[in-house]
């Protein structure tokens, strides 16, 4: 009896404590998200940093580049998501034909995340040329997918709107947060036209820079892409395996 009683009392106290802890944690989160972040975003606004890969300067920068397109579906229901799934499934042959012809893609994946259709790919070469090549080879697949996406109707058919389509894709390409911690500061300074040597920075504000950037840039790619065989193109890999190109 006493054992049960003790146990019950402890459980109740633990439960109260747990409830209090959860409430305090919720309060902190609420205060940070709903008051602190909007306050600093208003007081120290940041520019939304551009998506896509950084400029390629050297040969190694020009291979295995990442594209992370996150495109909100018009129809935010299971039916809308099913339409997107169908658009990919119906075009399997076109996609493989495009991959084989373009020859610069390591892999490409279509993923539905909530109400977004996402295309994640790793490719070699210039971003503009990459999209241009795909418009030529599988523009119909892009059109089928983009038609389902908010604002997509303005840039299809892609073959007739090449430059607009490339810009649209670039706008949907996620900002790539570097795995070099201080690059977020450098990117922000560059966006503000500040390329100086410093002198009046506050390194302890690095978390705020990241938070405010994520406040305006909700979809981002993390890290520079973790590669098992960095520095090699898809063509070089296929050649080494003796499978053509």
């Amino acid at each position, binding site marked *: 009896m006493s054992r049960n009683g003790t146990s019950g009392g402890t459980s109740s106290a633990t439960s109260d404590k747990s409830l209090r802890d959860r409430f305090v944690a919720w309060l902190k989160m609420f205060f940070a998200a709903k008051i*602190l*972040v909007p306050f*600093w975003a208003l007081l120290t606004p940041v520019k939304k940093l551009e998506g896509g890969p950084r400029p390629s*300067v*050297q*040969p*190694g*920068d020009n*291979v*295995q580049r990442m594209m992370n397109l996150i495109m909100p579906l018009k129809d935010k229901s299971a039916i809308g998501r099913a339409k997107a799934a169908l658009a990919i499934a119906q075009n399997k042959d076109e996609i493989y034909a495009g991959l084989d012809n373009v020859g610069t893609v390591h892999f490409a994946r279509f993923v539905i995340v909530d109400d977004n259709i996402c295309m994640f790919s790793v490719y070699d070469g210039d971003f503009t040329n990459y999209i241009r090549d795909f418009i030529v080879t599988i523009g119909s697949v892009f059109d089928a997918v983009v038609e389902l996406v908010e604002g997509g109707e303005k840039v299809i058919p892609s073959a007739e709107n090449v430059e607009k389509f490339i810009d649209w894709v670039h706008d949907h390409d996620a900002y790539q947060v570097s*795995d*070099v*911690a*201080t690059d977020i*500061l*450098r990117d922000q300074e560059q966006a503000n036209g500040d390329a*100086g*040597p*410093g*002198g*009046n*920075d*506050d*390194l*302890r*504000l*690095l*978390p*705020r820079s990241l*938070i405010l950037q994520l406040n305006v840039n909700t979809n981002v790619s993390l890290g*520079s*892409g*973790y*590669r098992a065989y*960095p*520095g*090699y193109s898809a063509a070089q890999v296929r050649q080494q395996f003796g499978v053509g190109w």
Partner: protein
Amino acid sequence: MTDPTQAERLVQSIIADFPDNDPKKRPIHTIGIGVKGTFEPSEVAPDYCIAEHFQPRPKDDPVKVTVRFSNGSGSPKQHDGWNDVRGMATRFHLANDGATDLIAMTLGGFFVRSVDEFFDFTNSAHQTPVKPESALCKIIDALSLKVPLPDPPPGQTQSGNAGTLDYANKHRFAQLAIFQAGIIGAPVSYVRAVYHAVHTFFVVGPDGLRRPVRFSWKPVAGVQTTDPTKAPVDDYLQGELRKRLEKWPARMMLMMMIGEAGDVLEDPTVPWPAHRVRVVMGTLSLEEVAADQVADGEKLSFNPWRLVRGIEPSSDPLLKARRDAYEVSRTRRGVTQCPFLPE
């Protein structure tokens, strides 16, 4: 050659931060442990570098190595659990009593690019009294979305952190290394950390091709640091290593990142992009803690310029300065000199 007076001043500027430093011990990385082991080059290593330790050898005659793991501080007081850079100095023992060294640390880059900047940095980062931030300041930091200042570990009364941060705020080139150093933590084991040789070297291949490279050691056991929310333990790293090696050798992979035309060669504050080609150059097997810690640890004199045919230093001014600073340190400690390759 660098100015010997400058080398003296470099060592003095480091010692100045550690008033309790023993002149017969290293000015920094004072606490350490010597370990014996072997190095086996990878199959591809000879394709990239003609250096003796990268050539194929019989399985029963591997390259013998001595490694000294260390804590970064120049204080003779051991604080294994403190947030600190760790060192891994490796000596490859070669034929005819030859040797080459590879000196690495857990920080991926340096704070400064030149000797003058180093002096500025040490002037700025001198030790000042330190105490925990007040509760009010912590609240203000949290409201400002700022990194809170970490509480000094028990027993720490002086720290260079305030000056270091001030230097970083004034010099963007220093910010990455200083930020990383601030969060580097303490490894659970000396063999569960990545060690970077930081500077650029050139390796010469059998075809005569010179490639700019940066070396790093990657632990086969994986990377793990201690829980920063728990009180730091002062003395565990050497005991952990002894126990570990009694059971099984610990292994580290030597990785070599190859730079490309246009990559920064002379500035150790700038990391190379992670997507440069990286080559497995070999595996180090650490087998036992050296029985004679004086001969195989404290009296060993490492030098990043102790190189062999096939590996050349870059023109990095800090790498140049380290050659003579290490010599000053060696002389100060009364340790026997090992021969350098002729310049």
